[in-house]
């Protein structure tokens, strides 16, 4: 089913959406040290972030037939992590620490836009 096959009319009955679809709010203080300012957010979503990255890792493994490529990229990114500008570098280190996800994978997640464009 690609869009060209669809001729659905404009909807007029979708608002307000169910409250269950509302996105949860968090405060992030820019006065806090970058390394700790995201901890309460990622602590609440660490299993979801881990599942997402695992899914992506599985996808690359199925595509290439091996985990070697993903691990190689993640390890290489760990090496260039110190070149990421501050405060984003420290924020990612903090996220990696709280979630236990390797820094290279957190960096890959954060440059996903450029990586997928590539």
């Amino acid at each position, binding site marked *: *089913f*690609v*869009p*060209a*096959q*669809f001729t*659905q*009319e*404009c*909807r007029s*009955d*979708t*608002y*307000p*959406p169910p409250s269950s*679809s*509302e*996105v*949860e*709010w*968090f*405060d*992030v*203080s*820019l*006065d806090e040290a970058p390394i700790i300012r*995201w901890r309460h*957010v*990622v602590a*609440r*979503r660490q299993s*979801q*972030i881990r*599942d*997402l990255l695992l*899914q*992506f890792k*599985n*996808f690359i493994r*199925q595509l290439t037939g091996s985990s070697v490529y993903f691990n190689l990229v993640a390890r290489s990114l760990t090496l*260039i992590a110190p*070149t*990421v*500008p501050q405060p*984003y570098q420290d*924020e*990612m280190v903090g*996220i990696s620490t709280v*979630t236990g*996800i390797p820094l290279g994978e*957190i960096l890959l*997640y*954060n*440059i996903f*836009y*450029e*990586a*997928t*464009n*590539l």
Partner: protein
Amino acid sequence: CTSVLAEDSKGVLYHARNLDFGLFFGWDKAKKTWLVTEYLRPTIVNIRFKKSGQTVFMSTHFAGYVGILTALKPGRFSLTVNSRNSLDGSSTLGIIEWILGKRDAVWMGFLTRRVMETADSYAQAKQMLTGTKMLAPAYFILGGNSTMQGCIITRSRNAAIDVWERSAAANHTWYLLQTNYDHWKPPFVLDDRRTPGNKCMMAKGQASMGFKEIFNVLSSIPVLNKLTTYTALMRVDTGEYHSYRQTCKDPCPIW
């Protein structure tokens, strides 16, 4: 992605977007869904960035991602990012240059974050988004706080190759709609969300424009599709910001 800037007949500007992501990153045959899209949806969070106890700006994130894809600075401006693929000036060269030590270009998410933190006005945000060298091309959809403000910036890695101002938009100056294709070219024939999106915006009309009708447009197929993770609704003058996880039930296009 689909982003919309629309002004009602009273001069109130609304900014909204669908964030679509996950194309070709694995397909679940049983559930008929994109795997990465399904795994992204539970990570969505809204963030109030605060300084000295005051809200500086609000944004919607995939938890763990520190850059900005959708954000509002109350009373100042709003910003959404749509991805742009371009054979000339893709991110390949930019990433290689970065690894080799040439670091005069900026990662997209870090640029938008800097804009939200430091720009104090629509004009300043526009200047930063048009004039900063980037690692990959993108579309920046920027809304302001007063009538007729709002533009779509088409970026190559080096510069803005087009700035589509609302005042210059032909036929329908009251809104601009951007998907993932240059607005002066026809969209890819198998991924035309622009035509149905425009059709729905024109059918709703300026007089009835507001969160309700923009949400209805963004919930109409194929603007809403199996890649859609969330819809965000923003109003700069009042600082209102809402975002909702979106799912598209069958029959639904795969993109």
